[in-house]
């Protein structure tokens, strides 16, 4: 780590000698091991060593960026010269007020698990096979496809203000798709888990969830077009809120008037049941970090408090433009940082404040409705409108979750979605960068084939 920090500081000096007075440098060394299973059989084991350097230079506010997939002197010199020349070629920008100053380091627990780093390929394959055994434990399951990825990353960041910071991170990810068949009917169930910690139980949980949902989807029915209460599973809620709040509160989009949340700071954007904060210090969570992509110390912040929008998410550029402090939301992308892209703005770990209602109580209270488990659609952040395919969802009838519904859609404005949240569950899970329980929306438009 010390060596990497020294290299980052040396490259800052190199850029300065080339005439780049304002710059930051990220030195990264990531290692990824994966194991994959196809139709129940081990298919491939992989290893990737991915050292590299990212250099960002500002010339009168114009940003040049270059990276190289090496830490060798020749490539680093080439990248440094390119970054300086790219910055000089760009357009000056008076809104750029400078890079972060050094600050006291913050200790965040749960970024690095030595057990993850030490996992051997054979052990990774065995863990994955335990998932496959669990997912296959039913006659109707005809195929299981699964993957396990173990990542370690060391990064050192330095800038021309004298900031220097370094950290180690790990990530342990498992994914499963179980396919079930009954006669001509076929359906698949998926689940995944992602953590900075080695969790020996997660492969079994993911395998069993994929199996259960594959089988559950074999019984299906059509649904009539209409307005229904909708319960969002954490998988669906996480996917939607990650874009709707993480993307919608992005200060860059807000300043450029591209977000439906522009102009709504301090106003009610949702029901009092909805409180969401962004916590980069959450132990073992995938988005946790001891400094952001520009070196700013992380802090827990309320984004929506009982329905009121409290803050946007800033990096140093957007904060300078609004003459405030960065919220520490500059991101280098992913659990293990990437040097291949300039930093952008992202939420770290969004957390939905839990309520007191169990899923059973929520469903019983529903009468008739829809349970949306999986969608991979993104909202239109300019209009705040959201229409999605219900990739996996179930009819709720007589207070019980019933058969799967197929070829159906959900449509709702995001502000309506937030305002119509009338129940929040008590049991959260992590999904797509969001820790959230089940959430009930009192009414949404369902398009059906019935």
């Amino acid at each position, binding site marked *: 780590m010390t060596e990497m920090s020294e290299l980052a500081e040396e490259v800052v000096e190199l850029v300065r000698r080339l005439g780049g007075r304002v710059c930051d440098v990220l030195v990264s060394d990531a290692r990824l091991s994966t194991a994959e299973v196809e139709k129940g059989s081990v298919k491939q084991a992989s290893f990737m060593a991915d050292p590299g350097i990212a250099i960002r230079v500002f010339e009168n506010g114009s940003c040049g960026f270059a990276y190289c997939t090496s830490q060798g002197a020749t490539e680093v010199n080439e990248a440094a010269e390119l970054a300086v020349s790219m910055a000089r070629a760009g357009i000056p920008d008076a809104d750029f007020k400078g890079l972060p100053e050094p600050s006291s380091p913050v200790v965040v627990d749960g970024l690095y698990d030595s057990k993850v780093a030490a996992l051997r390929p054979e052990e990774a394959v065995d863990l994955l096979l335990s998932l496959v055994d669990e997912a296959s434990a039913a006659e109707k399951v005809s195929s299981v496809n699964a993957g396990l990825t173990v990542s370690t990353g060391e990064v050192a960041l330095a800038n021309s203000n004298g900031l220097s910071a370094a950290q180690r991170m790990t990530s342990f990810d498992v994914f499963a798709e179980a396919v079930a068949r009954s006669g001509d009917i076929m359906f698949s169930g998926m689940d995944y888990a992602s953590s900075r910690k080695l969790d020996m139980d997660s492969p079994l949980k993911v395998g069993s969830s994929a199996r259960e949902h594959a089988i559950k989807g074999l019984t299906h029915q059509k649904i009539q077009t209409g307005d229904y209460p909708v319960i969002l599973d954490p998988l669906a809620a996480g996917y939607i809120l990650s874009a709707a709040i993480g993307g919608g509160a992005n200060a860059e989009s807000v300043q450029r008037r*591209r977000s439906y949340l522009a102009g709504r700071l301090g106003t009610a954007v949702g029901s009092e049941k909805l409180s969401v904060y962004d916590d980069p210090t959450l132990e073992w969570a995938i988005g946790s970090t001891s400094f952001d992509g520009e070196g700013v110390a992380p802090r827990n912040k309320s984004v929506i408090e009982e329905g009121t929008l409290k803050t946007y998410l800033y990096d140093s550029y957007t904060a300078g433009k609004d003459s405030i402090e960065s919220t520490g939301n500059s991101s280098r992308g992913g659990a293990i940082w990437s040097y291949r892209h*300039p930093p952008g703005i992202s939420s770290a770990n969004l957390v939905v404040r839990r309520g007191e209602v169990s899923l059973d109580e929520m469903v019983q209270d529903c009468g008739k409705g829809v349970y949306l488990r999986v969608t991979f659609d993104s909202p239109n952040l300019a*209009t705040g409108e959201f229409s999605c395919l219900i990739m996996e969802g179930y009819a709720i009838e007589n207070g019980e979750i019933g058969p799967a519904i*197929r070829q159906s859609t959900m449509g709702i404005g995001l502000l309506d979605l937030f305002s119509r949240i009338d129940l929040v569950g008590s049991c959260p899970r992590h999904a797509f960068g969001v820790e959230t329980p089940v959430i009930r929306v009192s009414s949404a438009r369902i398009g059906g084939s019935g």
Partner: protein
Amino acid sequence: MEDLAEAVIDRALSLGAEFADLRIESVSGVNILVMDGKTKTVTARIDRGCGVRSFVNGGWGFAVCNGLESSELMKAAEISVRLAKVSKEKAKVRFKIESTPSIRKNIEYGCRTAPSTVAVADKISFVLGLDKSMSVHDERIISRSARYDDLEGDRVIANSFGTLVKTRETWTLASCAAWGKSDGIVQRGHGAVGNVGGFELMGTDAAVSCGEEAAEQAIRLLDSKPVPAGKFTCVLDNKMTGLLAHEAFGHACEADAILAGASVLEGMEGKMVAHEAVTLVDDPTVPETFGFFPNDWEGVESKKHVLIQDGVLTEFMHNLETSSRMGKLPNGAARSDSYASPPIVRMSNTYIGPGDMSRDELIGDLKDGLLIKGGQYGYVEPAKGQFMFKCDEAYQIKDGVVGQRYRDAILTGLIQDVLKDVTGIADDFELVDPGYCGKSGQDARTTDGGPHIRVTNVVVGGLA
């Protein structure tokens, strides 16, 4: 680089690999992002590295190193063999990679003006021109993004069957997005042009006008309404037909999904899966398209894949493994998004072939339905048999007349039903929509297209 490639393959074989291949790449490129009249970032990339793959009796090992030091590449070969043996130990399915004739070839993509010979200032000037074309289009345009990407690279693909294919690849891409505002309503429009080839492509009318296209769309959408949800007969424009071909059917025809037991089309070869007028093709050999490649990323010569002929499912897309296991000839559909990813089965230029009706006939015959235009994105789960794709604009069709404009409609259907519900195919074929397709964390450059088509029983998702 060729000698090093063959030495690395030899090293993998000497350690026990039954088959080995590699991709060595040295790539440079520039990305320029302009937002509201200023450069947001000007990026240069230097990507150099190698991915080595080894196979032992049903198990694959894959190892990646950065840089082109021979010692690192040799180490990657050793790791790949070790990992292949780890896979083999626990693999339940045993198979061989069938030998193919060796292919030795030097390929250079057509390119009149290499991007590396163009000053960055000139590229920035082009992107600023796109930005300006949006800002002057209409005073209701409140924000703009214009982007330019180029890539120039050398790739060596080698394998233990004696294949050694060297490719000099060049492509360029421009894309624009514009946000319009009126009476408190904000709408976004977009446009993109991409192709294999050099900076000369940025001088074409299509590239120069892609900013205006985005701005026009944003302004058009300002008077749109949310689309009503429900089941409709839809007329799809060229882009949406392409997206349908890609999402609704193309992915389910990728043979790796068949072997994974995760496609509803398993066992359907030779059966009617579409209306008899439907022919659906994936063709990487179409020149001057974003999905073009003469040889795939395993070195196999690319060919046209006729997936559906006259309504009958005729072919799947294969790589060396799937063709070996399914008793077929490899047909050149293996692609990697870089040296750091193993080749998997992918599409290229995917389209539905032309029919003999006119677009006006498709619409004029329709009493009640929707005209769907412009594609945003789509996705599919072949194991669930469900897909969706999202349009830019939709229009009400009433008694054969196109009326009210709608926005943000999503269309969803079932893979096994949707093409049987085609009731008309127009003669106005176009391969029009360059973009990127994502699968297993890898991006592939692709183009989609086709003629206008009419489909019944489409479930449309919307807010109204």
